[in-house]
């Protein structure tokens, strides 16, 4: 579904990504791990059209995404949850979800299936997003991304600043959503437990290149982790 080939790019001064090839099938969750500065976040920013300089190929269902402005990429079915949560703090929970649905062109409000996944949001409809806890905001950000019925979901460190119990919940939720909605997911994550729990495949980035790629179970091997992440 998503095909990235020989992707190079960065923020202007020197490349951050140096020839990345990656394929994500629909219904599949791929975790991207790597040390700080390896280009993980930059990779999904490139897919979202937020990178000033990007060369190579990015295709969704055979149609080129690279070169399109971010809002058009969103309208083609790519949803992005940035690091540090992507909610609008002054809007209420309901408004945050409505705007997610509206942005994708939906005219009939918040999709019911999204609320089924996150039932607690319904009780918080009138609360402003900024007053929720870190984990709740993260859930809201994911729910809002799903409200646009995307084909591909990009998550940048959803575990950041979220308490362990919720991280575990997110780890169970992501593959479930991917299966139920036939959604491809790229999860960029420092938290290896979450990365392995959520994904079927792990990709290790190093200096803007893919250093290693394997099934999640194989990545549980401490030797493999040490070799590629030096931890």
């Amino acid at each position, binding site marked *: 579904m998503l095909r990235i080939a020989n992707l190079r790019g960065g923020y202007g001064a020197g490349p951050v990504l140096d020839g990345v090839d990656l394929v994500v099938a629909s219904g599949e969750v791929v975790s991207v791990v790597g040390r700080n500065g390896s280009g993980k976040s930059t990779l999904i920013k490139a897919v979202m059209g937020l990178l000033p300089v990007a060369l190579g190929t990015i295709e969704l269902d055979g149609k080129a995404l690279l070169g399109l402005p971010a809002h058009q990429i969103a309208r083609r079915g790519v949803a992005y949850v940035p690091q540090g949560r992507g909610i609008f703090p002054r809007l209420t929970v309901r408004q945050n979800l409505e705007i997610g649905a*509206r942005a994708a062109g939906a005219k009939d409000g918040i999709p019911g299936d999204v609320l089924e996944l996150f039932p607690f949001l319904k009780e918080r409809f009138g609360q402003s997003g900024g007053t929720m806890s870190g984990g709740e905001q993260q859930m809201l950000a994911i729910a*809002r991304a799903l409200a646009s019925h995307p084909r591909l979901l990009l998550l940048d460190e959803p575990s950041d600043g979220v308490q362990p119990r919720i991280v575990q919940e997110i780890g169970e939720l992501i593959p479930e959503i991917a299966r139920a909605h036939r959604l491809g997911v790229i999860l960029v994550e420092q938290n290896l437990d979450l990365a392995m729990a959520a994904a079927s495949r792990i990709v290790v980035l190093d200096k803007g290149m893919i250093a290693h790629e394997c099934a999640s179970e194989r990545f549980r091997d401490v030797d493999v982790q040490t070799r590629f992440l030096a931890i």
Partner: protein
Amino acid sequence: MARLLVACRLLFAQPGLGGRERVGAQIAVAAFAVLALYPAVGSDYHLAQLRDALLLAIFALSLDYLWGRTRMLVMGHALFFGIGAYGMAIATTRLGWPTGGGLLLGIAVAASVAAAVGYFLLYAGVRLHFFAVLTMAMSLIATQIAASWSSVTGGDVGILGVPPIEFSAFGLHYSGGDGTASYYGALFLAFLTMLVLWLACRAPYGLILEAIGSNENRARTLGFNTARQLLIAFTAAAALAAFAGALFATTAGVVAPDLLGTLLSTEVMIWVAIGGRGTFIGPLLATLLVHEASQTISSLSTSLWPLLLGALFLLIVFALPDGLVSLLRRRKEA
């Protein structure tokens, strides 16, 4: 037709009234009632002063719509007010057009300038203080043009003898030359403008502006063409400012380069800040109060007013960053 329906729903589909909004609505209704009764007690002089202030309040509302909702600050907003005023003056005195034509000319020129400049700046990613300062530069350039292109703009003196608005509809005759009639005209238009902006901004359209104002990149990655939305808002705000300026020219009867300039641009920012950004009723009332204060204090000493205004602005920024309306709301909530 279907598209029109969608646009109407985007602009006017209304959610229920929240507690904070109820306070604002109560203030607005009370203020309207007091202002509607004012001609019974006020002198002709004060009535004319308040009428001018109401037209300036429309100008303040146009900035509040932009600054309060999209957080996009325009430091040279008087540019558009002045273009509206000069459009009216040039059309009526130089070209012999009726006042309706002058109104349209002023609005069209201001909207075109905003659309053209805004297109190049906003689509190129110019934002925040860079954008604010560039609009200030534009206002300075326009002031220079108005002061030096004497054959059209009347130079430093400006243009005198702009006629008042007169029209007949449904068997009724409106004459802008009549003090009471023009007062009620200004009152009606100021509150109508506020009502329309308020309804549009609490409809789904307002959510889009709020999202862009709060984090443009986030709004973009959701699928909104943020540069286009900002351009539309900027152009609409310019058109509304020009509308206020053109009306102001007909009641004042005269236009001069200071209508385009820095002092008025600064004053309108202060009115909005004092009233409370994004509240609409706040800037409207602040304009009336501050304008009244400026007339009273300037009559005592002309140099005192800018000094006091600056001090008041600093006080508001430090003590009440959300403006006077936030004070009323807080008291209500406490």
